[in-house]
C-alpha cells in the first residue's frame, strides 16, 4: 500500500476530509454499501494520501474558505453548497481530492463485492477472456493491399 511519508492531517483537517468524503460518496441501503466516511475506508484514505498531501491540505483550506469555517461544522445545506462551489471553482484540487477518496473507496471489499466482483488483486489468478469470432475478419482479409509502396 502507498503510505504517506509526510506528517498526517491535523485533527481538524481529518474531520473536514471525512465529512467531505461522506458527502461525496454517502452510504446507500439500496446498493448495500458504506459511505466513504466509513471508519475502515476513511482510515485507508488517510494513510494513503502520500504524495498528494500538499494538495489535499490546499483543497481543505479552500473548502474552509468557501464555507466560511470548518467544513465539518456546517449544516447539510451549507455543506452541499460549499462542495458545489469547490467543484466548480477549484477543478484541479477537486480532481485530486476526488482521486484520493475514490482510489480507496473502490478497493474496499464490501464495495467491490457490491459491484459483483471478487475482492482480490489481478495476480496470480488473472481472468478469462473469450476468444471471439475470428470469422468477423473475413471481409477484411478480402480487401486488397492498403499500404503504399515506397521505393
Amino acid at each position, binding site marked *: *500500500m*502507498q503510505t504517506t511519508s509526510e506528517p498526517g492531517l491535523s485533527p481538524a483537517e481529518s474531520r473536514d476530509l471525512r465529512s467531505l468524503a461522506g*458527502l*461525496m*460518496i*454517502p452510504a*446507500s441501503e*439500496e*446498493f448495500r*454499501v458504506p459511505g466513504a466516511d466509513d471508519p475502515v475506508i476513511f482510515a485507508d484514505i488517510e494513510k*494513503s494520501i*502520500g*504524495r498528494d498531501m500538499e494538495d489535499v491540505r490546499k483543497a481543505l483550506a479552500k473548502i474552509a474558505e468557501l464555507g466560511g469555517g470548518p467544513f465539518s461544522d456546517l449544516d447539510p445545506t451549507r455543506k*452541499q453548497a460549499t*462542495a458545489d462551489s469547490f*467543484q466548480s471553482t477549484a477543478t484541479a484540487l477537486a*480532481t485530486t481530492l*476526488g*482521486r484520493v477518496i*475514490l*482510489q*480507496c*473507496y*473502490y*478497493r474496499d471489499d464490501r464495495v*467491490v463485492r457490491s*459491484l459483483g*466482483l471478487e*475482492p*482480490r*488483486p*489481478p*495476480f*496470480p*489468478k*488473472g*481472468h*478469462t*477472456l*473469450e*476468444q*471471439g*469470432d*475470428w470469422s*468477423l*475478419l473475413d*471481409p*477484411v*482479409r478480402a*480487401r*486488397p*493491399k*492498403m*499500404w*503504399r*509502396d*515506397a*521505393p
Partner: protein
Amino acid sequence: MAPPSTTRSTNDMVDVLIIGSGASGAAVAWSLAETKMRILCLEQGDWMKQSDFPSNGRDWEARRYGDFDISPNRRARDTDYPVNDDNSVMKVANFNAVGGGTVMYTAHYPRMHPSDFRVKSLDGIADDWPVDYATLEPFFTENDRMTGVAGLAGDPAYPPHQPTMPPLPLGKTGTRYAKAMNSLGWHWWPSDSAIATTEYDGRAPCINLGHCTPGCAQGAKANVDITYWPHAIRAGVELRPRCRVREITTNAQGMASGAIYYDADGIERFQPAEMVIVACNGIGTPRLLLNSASSRFPNGLANSSGLVGKNLMLHPWPQVRGYVDERLDGDHAPMLSIWSKEFYETDPNRDFVRGYTLQFARGTGVVNEAITSASVGHLPWGKDHHRIYRDLLYRRIQIGVACEDLPEEHNRVTLDPVLKDSHGIPAPKIDYTISENTRRMMEHGIVRASDILTAAGATNLYTSRTILNSPGHLLGTARMGNDPERSVVNAWGRCHDVKNLFIVDGSIWVTSGGVNPTSTIQALALYIADSIKQRLATLFD
C-alpha cells in the same frame, strides 16, 4: 570536456559503452555481444522485480498514480530525473529502470509502414529517412523473434510478416468493435502485441491481469529486462544499474573517450571506452549531449548542425470514449486488442497530410473508471453517485487516435537553467506545440472514432484531445540523415561530428509515423548494430 580528474575513480577500459538499457540499448547490446568485445551498459535505474509490480496487490490501480505513475515528475523515484514540461501541451512519460520505458509500455507493437520512411518523396513534406522499410525488414523479423509478438499474419495494411504467436483474444469488447467496423466497411485487424499468448522463451503466457502498462506481474509482457537482457548478459555483456551518466567525455582528437557517471553510492567515476553508444530516448539523449558541451563542442556534443534537441515529436493522441448497454471486458484483459489503418495513408481529399492509427481499447478498472469519470463531471458527488457509477462500470469502450507528429524545429529539448536531478545534473526542458496539420488530423480522427463508437452502440461520448502524460513516445531530437548540416547521425547511427559515438534510440527518427514506436526503435537498433559489425575494421574512418 576535460579528461577525468585525479580525484575521480577510473574504471578499466571497455570496448563499447552503452548508456541506457531500454528498448534500443538492450537490442544493440545483445546484437554486439557476438563480437566478443568488452561491452558495458550503464543504467541509471534499477532492476525491477515482477513481485513488485502493482497487480500483485489490492492497491494496484492507485499505484498508477503513485510510484508507477507514467510521469517522472509525479513518480519521483530516486532513479528518475525531473523534466520541465510546463511549456508543452503534452507531458512527458517515461520509466527509468533496467528495461527503460518497456517496463511501462502497453506493448502495442506495430511496425512503421513503408511510406513512413519516404514522407518527403510521397507527400512533399518533412524529410525522407536515409533507410527504408525493406532495409529494416530483416531486423523487424529478428526483433519479433527476440521479443515474442502475438498477432495474425495477413493484415492488408502491411507488407507480409508472420507474428511469432497467436493474437490476443477479441473478447467481448473486440467483438463489438469488429462488428461495428464491418458495418462501416472499415479496416481493422488484431494488433501486433509484445505480449506472450503462449509460453515463449521462458516467459509465461498472458493470464489477463489487465494492467499491462505498469509492469506485468506474470511476465507475459515483453519488457527488455526479461527478453533481450538475459541473453545479452549470458553472452558476456555487463549491465551496471543505478549508474547515472553526467556527460560523455572527448579526447584531444575530438573522439569520445568515455563517460563520467555517479555510481549507486553516489561516487563519481570515469568509464573509459573505445566507443560510446547512446540509448537514452528522445529526451534523455539530447539532455546528455547538451550536458556534454566542452570547449571543442561548445553547443553540445555532436551538435555542429544545431539540431540536437530539435524536432521533438510526441504523437498527439486524442481519445474518444463512450458507454454501451452491457458489461464488457473492462480491465480483465490487455487494454489494446485491435487497430485500424483505414485512415493511415495520405488522402489528397483531406485537409491534412499523413494519417493515423485508430487503437481500440477495452474498458478500464473499477478505481480508474470512478476517477476519470468524476474528473470530467460524468460521475457526481452525492446521492446519485452509486446509481450512475453502476451504469458506467465495465461498459466503457474507447478509441485512441495515434496521430503522426511532423518534425518542427521549435519543438525542442533544452537544458533547464534551474532544475536539476538528485545528482545536480541539469534537467531537460521541453517546448512543444501541436502543428496545424496535426490538429486537423486529430479532429478528423475524433470524428471517425465517434462514428465507430456510435456504430458500436455507445452513447455518452467524451473526447480528450490531449491525454495527460501520454503516450510517452519521445522522438526526433538527434535525427539521422546523410547531410551533416541537416542531421546529427548518419544513415547507420554514427554521429557526423564524433566518429566513435553512436545513437540508437528514438531520437534519431526523422519523422514519427502514426504508430507506437518501440518495434521500429528496436529494429533500427539491430540494424545499427549490424552496420557496426559489418564495418568493424573501418568503423571510425
